[in-house]
């Protein structure tokens, strides 16, 4: 199977063997059904063993899988009448972020998300889903529009990070990200963020100041990529696997750290194995999330978001002051 990952190879091999046996019984005059049954039982156990005991690095591989569903994939399954809005009305249209208006089960919403390409050509156009300042400014423009028309906002997070480039710095990458964090704080509508792939650093967070933050089971969210962390911590980017384990970047980690509200269960082996089923799974969580948040008034929504982020962080107190006298 194309795009199989190292850790799931035993599953793939067994699947192949079963398929071969089935093919064989079609032509040969032997009954192998009991053998096949046994193998299928073994496959089920193997799948459970492997997919339910995934290591952080395995999840990183799934989160980065080239066939992993993107924002646009989920948009097409989850929303009706999506109308894409381009441009920041100032400099350009950053295709690393898509956004627009749509309906979710009849409810008008604004949808925004990082967008990777499906192939090299599209990836170049979309800069591998790594935005420039105009991307964040487009996102903010659409959020303000949503606020004006009292539409809930749904953000899909899926980026390695903001693009580290010259032009991005010249046009104010930092300001653009900071402005989003600042302005998202005062939105009077529900903001729901769903990490669907890689949540890379500030580039992810710029779409991430939500009332609810959900994560797909095999997505990651971190301050820096495992490679980057390894380079800084141990001056060795090849230690990425080790970094992935120590940085606590998986969905269960973030849930434990109090950053994430819900972990959205993935299709066995990862979302790319069945986009439709995965989208339905996301749809259910989204629906419940919207229902809950729409019980809050505008002021309550702002307070709710404030309290959510205020509560993140870990600290304790000494018995005595050791500050300046």
């Amino acid at each position, binding site marked *: 199977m194309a795009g199989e990952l190292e850790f799931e190879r035993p599953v793939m091999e067994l699947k192949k063997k079963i398929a071969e046996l089935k093919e064989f019984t079609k032509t040969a005059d032997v009954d192998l059904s009991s053998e096949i049954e046994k193998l299928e039982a073994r496959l089920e156990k193997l799948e459970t063993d492997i997919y339910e005991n995934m290591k952080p690095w395995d999840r990183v591989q799934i989160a980065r899988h080239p066939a992993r569903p993107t924002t646009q994939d989920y948009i097409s399954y989850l929303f009706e*009448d999506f*109308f*894409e*809005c*381009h*441009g*920041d*009305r*100032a*400099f*350009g*249209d950053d295709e690393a972020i898509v956004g627009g*208006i*749509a*309906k*979710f*089960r*009849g*409810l*008008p919403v604004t949808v925004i998300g990082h967008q990777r390409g499906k192939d090299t050509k599209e990836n170049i156009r979309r800069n591998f889903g790594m935005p420039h300042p*105009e991307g964040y400014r*487009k996102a903010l423009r659409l959020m303000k*529009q949503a606020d*004006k*028309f*009292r539409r809930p906002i749904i953000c899909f997070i899926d980026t390695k990070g903001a693009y580290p480039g010259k032009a991005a710095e010249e046009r104010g990458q930092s300001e653009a990200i900071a402005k989003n964090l600042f302005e998202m704080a005062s939105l009077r509508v529900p903001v729901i963020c769903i990490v669907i792939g890689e949540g890379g650093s500030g580039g992810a967070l710029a779409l991430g100041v939500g009332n609810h933050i959900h994560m797909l089971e095999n997505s990651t969210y971190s301050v820096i990529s495992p490679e980057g962390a390894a380079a800084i911590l141990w001056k060795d980017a090849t230690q990425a696997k080790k970094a992935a384990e120590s940085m606590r970047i998986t969905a269960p980690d973030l849930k434990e750290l109090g950053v994430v509200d819900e972990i959205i269960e993935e299709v066995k082996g990862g979302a790319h194995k069945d986009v439709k089923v995965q989208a339905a799974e996301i749809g259910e969580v989204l629906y419940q999330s*919207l*229902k809950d948040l*729409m*019980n*809050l*008034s*505008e*002021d*309550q929504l702002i307070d709710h978001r404030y309290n959510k982020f205020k509560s993140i962080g870990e600290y304790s107190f000494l018995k005595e002051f050791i500050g300046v006298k």
Partner: protein
Amino acid sequence: MLKDIFTKTKKKKYATIPSETAKQDVPEGIMTKCPNCKKIMYTKELVKNLKVCFHCQYHHTMNSKERLESFLDASSFEEINANMISENPLNFPDYIEKLEKDREKTKINEAVVTGTGTVNGQKIAVAVMDSTFRMGSMGSVVGEKITRAIEKADELGVPFIIFTASGGARMQEGVLSLMQMAKTSVALKRFSDNGGLIISIMTHPTTGGVSASFASLGDYNLAEPGALIGFAGRRIIEQTIREELPEDFQTAEFLLKHGQLDAVIPRTELKDKISAILSIHQPGGDFQWQEN
């Protein structure tokens, strides 16, 4: 700048083939030649296709009547302020005569037609600029009629949709013309703050003061393919910077690439796309908002 537009549109204005059999119901001639691909086609069929060339998709100029007929639901249009006409505040020679002549020629009172109507059943206030009247230039009446249409939208609590087509400010009205930019913008801001939905559809050409005011102030800024949209005229920019500008400079597609437009929408899809946008601005679903 104005001059620029004049020459440009003159060139693009579709040529009609004189025909001896031409009757009153085909006043523009039975055949029309596309100024872009030079192919000749039946005028009637071209009109049926919303004046989009069958061969090259060139969007021929639509006047306000054709636009309203193609965009609004049949017989839903109710015009307002159709009797407002310009004064001659600067006593510009021949201005009054020129206006009279254009009124005679176009059968409309000024370069914008305003009113209310429905789009697939959804009520809107609408303003359609008409480039066949004084090049769609904006003077006191254009500014006032648009402002009143915005106020109408506010009063009725319905979206405001404007189709722009203009060479810019009306020179013969001097600074009063400039001030119409501010008047319309002030009205749009109040409407917007009251939660009003504004959709601007820029058609060929949308330039000068119109592009720098209400045309650019939509919640959704849309344009027809190939439309010329810009502030300063191409020739003035070229003379100023002493550089040749790219072929697609100031086209709708150029603006989309540079972040100024939400979308470029072919005329044949316009009604349905805008209808969908309108419906997203209606409450829906089994979700219950908390009352504040």
